[in-house]
């Protein structure tokens, strides 16, 4: 009896120290599937699932399929940490794509760092994310690069712009860093910022902010927020009589704003880290598959999550060629995967991307688009050159 127990104990210890990589290859996905962050999370889930389907339909990794393991990271720090712990310890994933929010990344990524599991942030844009550790990288570009382009495009459309109003969601990490870039870009273009108005992503009524904008008599509104609040702001700006151009930040780069501002979305200029119009073969394939299933253009969050899974798989493929994945020790593979992710170059729907040595994304293409509404519910992002 004792002997049996001892054998089992030894076997357990052995299994801990030299866990093999499972097949199909498990890749962890920890995104906001519940909570009020789920609006973003559910798009990311779609993107990740499409990537899985596509990859496995094309032979997986050298014949071995991948398997995405989903754990709900909701919108809070504790859930994200628990999701990470589950993926790392219970599901023995080789790497993790997630979490949705930057604040969650600051809490959960150190867990992966400590366990030496590579993490790709699909939508964490705050300053300092890649610096959390060696094992942390992201496929979501910080917005500072896109903002100036969008303002420049606005100037092109209306060279007479002199005064701008800036609005941003102060409880959203992403919008807060974006608005800094926007304000700087406006000043660089010689536009004076007449008023800065803050709001919360949970707000719905923006009458106060809109009246302040109207009183400031501006000819450009620059707006950083998310779909529901951003869409409502656009709608209320227009309904209350604002006539000038509107530049929307990257958070508005989703067709989710169409049902909110409906026909009033028309003409809004959007700063994009992803455009369905991106011409690469990888993207056009992704757009085709997405359209076939969902009858509309893929949103940025879906594309970024897709890219996250793809980057991880592409890197695994390189390793698989060196030695079949099933023969690797899990710990060894995780470490090698991390190195490989940072070393590679990827053709994703986001365009060609690489990483610097800290894990910051080096994305080549950014876009500025203008919304064109076909009817009250459907619209497109028209690529502005």
């Amino acid at each position, binding site marked *: 009896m004792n002997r049996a127990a001892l054998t089992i104990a030894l076997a357990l210890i052995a299994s801990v120290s030299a866990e093999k990589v499972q097949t199909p290859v498990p890749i962890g996905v920890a995104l906001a599937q519940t909570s*009020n962050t789920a*609006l973003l999370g559910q798009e990311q889930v779609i993107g990740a699932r499409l990537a899985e389907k596509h990859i496995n339909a094309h032979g997986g990794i050298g014949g071995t399929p991948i398997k995405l393991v989903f754990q709900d990271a909701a919108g809070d720090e504790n859930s994200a940490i628990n999701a990470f712990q589950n993926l790392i310890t219970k599901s023995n994933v080789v790497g993790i794509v997630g979490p949705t929010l930057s604040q969650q990344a600051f809490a959960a990524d150190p867990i992966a760092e400590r366990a030496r599991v590579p993490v790709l942030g699909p939508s964490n844009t705050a300053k300092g994310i890649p610096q959390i550790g060696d094992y942390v990288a992201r496929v979501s570009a910080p917005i500072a690069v896109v903002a100036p382009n969008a303002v420049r495009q606005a100037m092109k459309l209306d060279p007479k712009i002199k005064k701008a109003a800036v609005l941003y969601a102060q409880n959203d990490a992403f919008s807060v860093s974006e608005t800094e870039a926007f304000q700087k870009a406006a000043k660089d273009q010689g536009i004076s910022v007449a008023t800065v108005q803050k709001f919360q992503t949970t707000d719905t009524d923006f009458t106060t902010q809109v009246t302040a904008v109207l009183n400031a008599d501006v000819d450009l509104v620059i707006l950083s927020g998310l779909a529901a609040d951003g*869409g409502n702001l656009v709608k*209320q700006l227009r309904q209350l009589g604002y006539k000038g151009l509107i530049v929307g930040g990257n958070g508005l780069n989703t067709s989710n704003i169409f*049902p909110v501002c*409906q026909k009033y979305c028309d003409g809004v200029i959007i700063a994009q880290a992803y455009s369905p119009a991106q011409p690469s073969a990888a993207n056009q394939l992704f757009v085709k598959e997405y359209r076939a299933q969902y009858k509309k253009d893929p949103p940025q969050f879906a594309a970024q999550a897709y890219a996250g899974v793809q980057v991880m798989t592409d890197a695994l493929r390189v390793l698989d060629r060196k030695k079949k994945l099933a023969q690797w020790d899990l710990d060894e593979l995780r470490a090698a995967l991390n190195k490989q992710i940072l070393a590679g170059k990827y053709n994703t729907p986001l365009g060609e991307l690489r990483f610097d040595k800290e894990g910051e994304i080096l994305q080549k293409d950014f876009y500025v688009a203008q919304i064109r509404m076909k009817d009250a519910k459907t619209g497109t992002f028209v690529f502005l050159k």
Partner: protein
Amino acid sequence: MELSQLIQNLMNGLAIGSVYAIFALGYTLVFSILGIINFAHGAVFTLGAYFTYTLVVGQFENNGLLKGINLFPDGSPFSGNPWLFALATLIGAAVAGLVAVLIERLAFRPMRSRGGDPLLALVSSLGVALVVVNLIQLLVGAEIYNFPSDAYGQVRPALSFHIGEKVVIIRTVQLIIFAVSLVMLALLGYVIGRTRVGKALRAVAENPGTASLLGISVDRFILITFFLSGFLGGLAGTLVGTAFGVAGPYFGVSYGLKGLAVIVLGGLGSIPGAVVGGLVIGLAEAFVPAQYSAYKDAVAFALLFVILLVRPQGLLGRAQIQKV
């Protein structure tokens, strides 16, 4: 402050406040009769909007179990005419009322009969809210849904008035919300103040034991209370949805905090107090100067804190009776 600015702020305040008020009407009704705070009210409010949406549009997006469903391939029988929209709204509200009745039967009545800590009703209703919100997400996803832009017919999106040189504007839909909340308040006042049902409800509120001795079926009137509360909540959900879109399953729950502030400020148990409280908080938010707009919520709650200290029974509540 210029006169036009003052009037604009007043109108902004009424616009913001009437949303709070219409949310709070059904919320305060349950409190006034039963003395419990029903956290599920926000969820019922959300449901009302979703039910109406189902009738008027009937199409769901890509997430959730009902994805791709289109109930009315030939167009909804409730679309294209503001009166039909109003009818759909009333049906949606009535279904929301039935859900509230179900909630009372499943989550509140058993508790009353067991005599638990009245505070437990908070937890129980919180659980109900969690169930409803997550069920909505399971069924139709977290996306934003919206009503057709011509729900109220071809009305101008905003009305403007000239005050001297300056123009003052307000969105039409917010005027509608304001008007409907006043009408609801008046109707509710009439039902409770002048009808037999209202008399019975008041008796139940004052003392359920005595009421049942007088031959009033307490449980039945509690059900009526919940139905009315759910109906008002569902109606409010649709109206607010037409103004801002139905922003996902948490749409109504996010008004819960302000709603609580509104009914306490107005005076717990006072139905007109809910409207007054809503408008006061709306006005307080509207009069926060633009450069301090980031502190808007803090200002509203600081005001609340101070008012509570000065007048703990709320604006329209009765003085607290000291137990001796």
